[in-house]
């Protein structure tokens, strides 16, 4: 399917509109839910960390440090991607699957249009902006942690910010965004595959969405392990 995606490209004037529509549906449309989850999960990570540090010898700034590491390394790139597999992945599978069931894909093929290029390529291009969402998740996750820290009285603003700046390794950001790009490709292609090759009717569209969520999540978790081993060990 990936090879087919690049064959017989659709006219650029049409493709441009498809890409913009997919950016709106897949990227812009996900900012709200990602921001909400990132902010509050960031807060929870901070509270859990703070509550588990009961040794007076451990500095309070560790709360900010642990929050940053958790959010930048794992929560934002990996767990937001699992959430996106549910939101964006199901949307992609069900929209392409419905097109299959209602013969819209056959209509494209009859017209001589490469339906894989027409349907999947704009989604892959749109998802190259996925790191933008992850950047927002990283920022808001840390802000959520800061808010929880201050309002919960777990440490001072200065301690938290000192922790966030402590032992910062720029390669961790590179690692996080490398993972994000790989996950973006998975988020666009696995759900598209399940929607495009589905057979049956409306009930099967629902089943295909569930299957695509499961396989996208499995792929993300496995690749997360492999990439972490390759890049950080």
């Amino acid at each position, binding site marked *: 399917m990936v090879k087919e995606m690049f064959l017989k490209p659709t006219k650029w004037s049409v493709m441009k509109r498809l890409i913009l529509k997919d950016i709106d549906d897949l990227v812009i449309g996900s900012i709200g839910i990602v921001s909400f989850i990132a902010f509050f999960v960031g807060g929870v990570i901070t509270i859990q960390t703070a509550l588990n540090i009961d040794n007076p010898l451990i500095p309070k700034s560790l709360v900010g440090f642990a929050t940053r590491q958790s959010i930048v390394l794992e929560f934002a790139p990996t767990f937001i991607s699992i959430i996106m597999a549910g939101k964006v992945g199901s949307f992609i599978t069900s929209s392409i699957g419905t097109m299959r069931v209602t013969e819209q894909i056959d*209509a494209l093929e009859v*017209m*001589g249009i490469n339906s894989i290029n027409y349907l999947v390529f704009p989604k892959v291009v749109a998802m190259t902006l996925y790191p933008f969402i992850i950047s927002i998740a990283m920022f808001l996750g840390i802000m959520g942690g800061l808010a929880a820290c201050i309002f919960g009285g777990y440490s001072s603003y200065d301690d938290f910010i000192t922790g966030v700046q402590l032992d910062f390794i720029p390669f961790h950001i590179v690692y996080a965004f490398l993972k994000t790009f790989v996950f973006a490709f998975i988020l666009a292609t696995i759900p598209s595959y399940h929607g495009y090759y589905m057979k049956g009717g409306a009930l099967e569209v629902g089943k295909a969405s569930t299957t695509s969520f499961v396989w996208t999540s499995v792929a993300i978790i496995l690749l997360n392990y492999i990439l972490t081993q390759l890049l950080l060990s």
Partner: protein
Amino acid sequence: MIEVKDLHKSFGENHILKGLSTTFETGKTNLIIGQSGSGKTVFLKCLLGLFNYEKGSISYDGDVFAQLSEDQKRNMRAQIGMVFQGSALFDSMTIAENVMFPLRMFTKQSKSEMQDRVDFVLKRVNLDDAHNKMPSEASGGMQKRVAIARAIVNKPKYLFCDEPNSGLDPKTSMVIDNLIQEITEEYNITTVINSHDMNSVMEIGQKIVFLKNGYKEWEGSKETIFKTENEAVTNFVYSSNLFKEVRRVYLLNEKLK
């Protein structure tokens, strides 16, 4: 003209089309009829190039589709209009955008030229006030007319219709049948309709091909179908008392003449 010679198509062990040969003439409404499972849809999908076949050939005005290069196939497909059973309109586009779609994909016309052409074909199918509606807001009959408008907007040489009357009331079915026949004659295109609506057979069947178990059992026209003694055809076409009566009256009239 579309010429089909000795067409064979199987799915695994299941031999669906068993050596079909026929011709579909230009400027005529050609109907493929037969019971469910007789191979009509597979035949239509082979004609459209959606299914590959094992043996035989399909030629469009002398060009054998399977022997064409990818570019030639693409150009050929641009000359094909298709009306799907469920209309297959793109949900995310308005009716006007659906009709404009083939023009945007295959022509270099300016936006105003495309708009003029869309206005013209929508008017031709009596939908001149539905431009901005979404397909979900249109009735079944309207959706079929939009599908016909989309199929003819790029001035195709070949028009294929898969069960164009399914799910429609008898009056709307007649409107759709007449529209297809008018368009066929007006633009002199080769129209192939997959149907098991006997009203369509009687109304617009200028050429009828009857399929049974993947074979061509019979071919003729709406006039000759009244006179045929072929048992499979008469069992299928005259299975209802109404059509038996229509046939009886027709034959009686012929006798009196």
